[in-house]
Each structure stands twice: as C-alpha cells, then as structure tokens.
C-alpha cells in the first residue's frame, strides 16, 4: 500500500529526514518510535502533504501512485488520514458540518453522490458512540474549547467517519491520561481491518500496550536504525534509545 524509498525532507533549510525507508502493507500496523527531534512528526506531516515541508529526494508510492505529486486535499480524498498531535481549532464551524464537508469531498473524488445532512447525522451518531463521545460535540465548533483529551478523541472520530485506507497517528498519546488513552486506543482498535494500514508515531511504549503493532521501527536522526516486532518496543522502554545509537553519533 505504501512504499517510502530513500526519503529526504526538511523545513526551511533544516534537513530532518535523511534517507527514510518503509514498506507498509494493507492490514498492518507499524509503530515508529524515536526520541524528540528524530523526525517523527516531520514524517507524519510530509506524508500528509504539509506545504511548509520540502522533499529533496526519494519517492513515496501509495497504492501504486506517486503520493508526493498529490496536494494535501487529494491525499485525504484518496484515503490518507493523519491524526494531528495538536489538532487545530476552527471557531464558527460545527464539527458535524466540518466532517460532512470532508466526507463529501472524499465521495466527490470517488464519483459518489453527496451525503445529505440527515443521512450523515445518523453515521456521525454511530461513530460517536464508538469513541464514547457525547453527541453534543457534533454541534460544537471544531476543537474550539475542547480539552486535550477531547481533541484527540475528536481526531479518532474523524478517522472513524472518514474510514481511511492509510491512517497516520502522530503522537496521539501525548497529553492523555490513562483513561483517555484507553478510550482513544479502543477507538483505533475498532478500526483495525485487513484493508486498512496504520502508522502509529509515538515517543513512548505506553500506547503500544493498547494498540499492538505488527512492526516497530526506531527512528534516529532521520532514518530507521532498527526494526523488529512488538517486543522491540518493550526493549526500548527498558533500555532507552541510547543503546541503539550508532557509536560516535551526535546526541
């Protein structure tokens, strides 16, 4: 589904990703772990098409198409979804309205008819139950005045509604207490499917107790330095990142 080869990318003049490689197949969950500044968030944003980041070399193929050629909105319409580490507030626009616009943008891309408001509200209500969200949030402005946990839950709600093919969770666990983490993880697990791939980007092993990955990769200084199964996460938890660092590399 996703093949990243020798990806080099950065922001302004700063090089952050330096030869990143990853292959993800449908149905798989890959965890990307790494310390602060290793390039985790850059990877998420580059895949989602953030305009501030430049790709200087490498290629990314998504379902056989060149992902880097697509605008951010086309990627989303093609089934790429990123759950933000810091979701943006949009005052004045209700959650329901925003999500329906998103769903209809995806449907338009697929040549499907628009979903009307009544039909959509049904879908939304069902999905809100899935992430244990109060239905009142449907009419509240997008993320405005939400607590940290509510914002993260709202991201998972969006994912549930949009049913992406490739979901990237960018530090979804940051700022969550254990109860909120459990709810969010439960929502994500409900969305596991043989057709859907997920990339879970995280600093801590904690999230992976709840969302169990098929593969764990360690990102250091812009590239993957070690890959393994879910046990690798536990090893990192016990030993920290330093033991993997190549001898002589900068900390």
């Amino acid at each position, binding site marked *: 589904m996703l093949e990243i080869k020798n990806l080099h990318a950065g922001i302004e003049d700063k090089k952050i990703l330096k030869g990143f490689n990853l292959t993800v197949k449908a149905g798989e969950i890959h965890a990307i772990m790494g310390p602060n500044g290793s390039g985790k968030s850059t990877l998420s944003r580059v895949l989602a098409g953030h305009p501030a980041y430049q790709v200087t070399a490498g290629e990314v193929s998504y379902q056989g198409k060149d992902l880097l050629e697509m605008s951010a909105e086309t990627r*989303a319409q093609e089934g790429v979804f990123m759950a933000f580490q810091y979701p943006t507030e949009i005052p004045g626009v209700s959650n329901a309205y925003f999500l329906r616009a998103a769903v209809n943008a995806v449907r338009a891309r697929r040549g499907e008819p628009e979903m009307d408001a009544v039909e959509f509200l049904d879908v939304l209500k069902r999905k809100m139950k899935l992430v244990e969200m109060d239905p009142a949030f449907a009419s509240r402005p997008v993320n405005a005045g939400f607590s940290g946990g509510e914002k993260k839950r709202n991201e998972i709600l969006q994912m549930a509604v949009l049913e992406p093919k490739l979901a990237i969770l960018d530090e979804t666990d940051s700022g969550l207490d254990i109860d909120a983490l459990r709810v969010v993880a439960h929502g994500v697990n409900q969305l596991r499917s043989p057709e859907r791939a997920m990339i879970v980007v995280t600093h801590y092993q904690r999230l992976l107790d709840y969302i169990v990955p098929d593969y764990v990769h360690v990102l250091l200084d812009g590239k993957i330095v070690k890959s393994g199964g879910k046990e690798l996460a536990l090893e990192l938890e016990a030993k920290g990142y330093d033991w993997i660092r190549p001898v002589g590399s900068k900390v």
Partner: protein
Amino acid sequence: MSDAKELINREYKYGFVTDVESDAIPRGLNEETIRLISARKKEPAFMLEWRLSAYRTWLRMKEPAWQNVQYPPINYQDMIYYSAPKNKKDAPKSLEEVDKEILDTYAKLGIPLDEQKRLAGVAVDAVFDSVSVGTTFKDTLKKAGVIFCSFSEAVQEHPDLIQKYLGSVVPVSDNFFAALNAAVFSDGSFCYIPKGVRCPMELSTYFRINAADTGQFERTLLVADEDSTVSYLEGCTAPIRDKNQLHAAVVELVALKGAKIKYSTVQNWYAGDKQGKGGIYNFVTKRGKCAGAKSKISWTQVETGSAITWKYPSVILQGDDTIGEFYSVALTHNYQQADTGTKMIHIGKNTRSTIISKGISAGRGKNTYRGLVKVLKNAEKAQNYTQCDSLLIGDQCAANTFPTLEVENNTARVEHEASTSKISEDQLFYCASRGISGENAVSMIVNGFCKEVFNHLPMEFAVEASKLLSVSLEGSVG
C-alpha cells in the same frame, strides 16, 4: 484544475450590459438639470421646490473627508444625472409593456418579473438605471391596502404621503451625498403599510445600473403605520465597467406606534477588477425612525460588492420601548474598501439596540467598522449591546474598528465586545488534510463567522448571501 474554468466564469456573473436605447439628459449639474429631471417626471411644484432647496444646500456643503477610504476626486459636472430606458410609448402601464430586453435582464439576474414565474411571497419593484420599470403583485398588495410602487408613481398618486414623510428621517441638509440625492434623485420605491396590517408578502427592490457614466440616485421611503409589520429586501448589481460609477441612494424608514420593519440588503454592485480598476462607489444614507412607542426597526446588510462601500444604516429610537437592530457582514477583497457601521440614537425610555458587525478582509481589502451609540439625557434604562468581529485572510488586508459611545443618562447599560481573528495556515492545512480544498475551507470558515448575521436574513436571501461570499472570496487563498 478541472473547475478552474468554472471559477473564472463565476467571478462576477452580473457584469453584462443590456443593449437598450436610453433617454439621458446632458452631462453636468446645475439648476437647469434639476428642472429638467423634475419636468421629465411631471412632478408637482412642491417636489421641484424641495429639489432646488436641496441643491442650494448641497452647493454650500463640502464633500466629507473623515472616512477611512481613499478615492480620486469625483467630478460632479462630468456625470449624467438621469438615464432611462427609452420606451416607444410614454411609460409602461403594466409589466407586459416593459421592454423585452429589460425583462430578459432581470430574468438573467434571477429576478423574473413575470408573476407566474415569481417565487410566491415576494413582490418586486425593479429599478433600471434611473427609473422603476415594473412592480409585481400590485393587485395582491392593493387588496391588503399596502401601497408598493415606484417613487415617481407615488409622487403622482399619493402626494400627501410623500409630502408628509419625504425628508422626515434624512433631511436634505443631513450630509453631502444625501443633499445631492435629494436634488437629483430619479426614482426608487415607495411603500406604505396601513394600520394594523401585516404585509402579506416580502417586498423587494432590485436595483440595476446599466448605462455608462451615469450616477444612480434612488430613494426609498417606507412608512409602516401603527401596529403594522413588513419585511423588505433590497438587491443590487451593475455591469463590469472600467470607470467608477457613483451610487448615492437614500433610504428612509418610518415606524409608527407598534410597527415593525425589517430591512435586508444584499449589495453586490460591481467591485472593480483584481487591480482595483472600476467598480461602484456606494455612498448611501440609510436611516430609520422608531417614531412611535414599542416600534422596531431591524437592518440586516450583506455588503460584498462595490469598490467603496460607505454607509451607516441607523435607527433613531424616539418612542419609548422601541428596538433598533443592526446586523452586518461586510466583505472586502482585492482593492475593495468599506467604511460601514451604524448609529443608534436612544431618545425614548427603555429603548434597546443590538449591533452585530462582521467584517471580513481579504487580498488588499480594507474594512472599517464605525459606530455610534448615543444615549440622550431622557433615555432612562436604555440598553445597547455591540459586538464587532473582524476576520482577516492573508497579510495585506486591514481591519479597523471605531466604536463611539456617548452616554448622557446613568441608568443606561451599554456593552461592547470586539475580536479580530485570522484564517491561519494551520487551519487551512487541517482542512486540506481532511480533503477540504482551500477555497472551500475559507468559505466554510467565513460562513461560520457570519452565521449570526445570516440567521437574520429571510431564508432564500441567506442562501444567496452565503453563495455570494464564496464567489467574492475566490482567489483569496493560494
């Protein structure tokens, strides 16, 4: 981009010119011009006198310069003050006699004057250049006792009402442009709702400037007698021309005891091109008087067109327990400028006013809210709530707020809230990452921003206004 072509075509779809022969008077302004206009319209002597006194007042006045807009000096002698579509007969006696070209123009604008095709519930007075070309549903309204006709017709048929109310809210000496309008105004709409009558349908005037180099000066006079209710809509468009055109209208509303007037405007005059060339100077005086106790006047405006918009729809709260409201959305894009707001003058006891203003600036647009809330000495327990919000799109536009409070009674309660926000890159990326394009994201955010005002528009107008905002904002991102 597959829809690029569509976007370009959508830019200003009202910019076409109708090819009709027009009967215009020579350029320039002097007493002769005014006598000519008055004679053309076969006006009674009191009208000519009124016009001449306005003209003499105007000569002594100076064009104001305090407003926060810039434009090159207007040459008042280089303008045509009267232009009417030429008609073979004297004047069209019914809609069937109106020139087909003109009927087609309104159909193209989405305002079919053919009553069969009209949406039920809205009567239209269509003003084309300087004259009213037709009013629909006259008979239905007549049965209810409602008078709704062109201003010219009202001068002929109801001179007593005109003489009583004309200039009673906006006197000729009020300001430079109001005086000019009083001297040369050519037509407009007149409306009278009798005592106790709830007007059976929405009334509307649709203004269209067609001829080149003409100024358009219409006047609307709306009188709601005791305990009557009326909702009035106003729409405006003009062809694309590269020279600026002046539109200096006056609207006067009179609400007697217990009457309620709701006046809504969707202004979409030609705004000029992307470089700021051409467009309408929309310098308008609008004022309502809550003359009797417990009356209410509510202004709602959506201003998206014009190169320059300069107007302050106001309410004089004279009667006790009267209510004044002002809901406004003003959008400036490219080089458009707007200096708009309201004045709420509290004279009576327990008078209440609400002001909600939403200014949106994009491109190099300049948007100013200017408002006055004045509570006079005897206005016991007057209340005002003002909220001014500005939304910026991009970093070359500007928004200003100049609220003024003058309170002479210490039982009054006035509240003011203001905010300025900007559509951020983060918001646009967030929307994009959910599949929503930049244009749609801006339109969604702007519509959300304006919701409080749109809620006060009649249903169809609200839909139209929301579409209009999206079209006016095209090209504001990316």
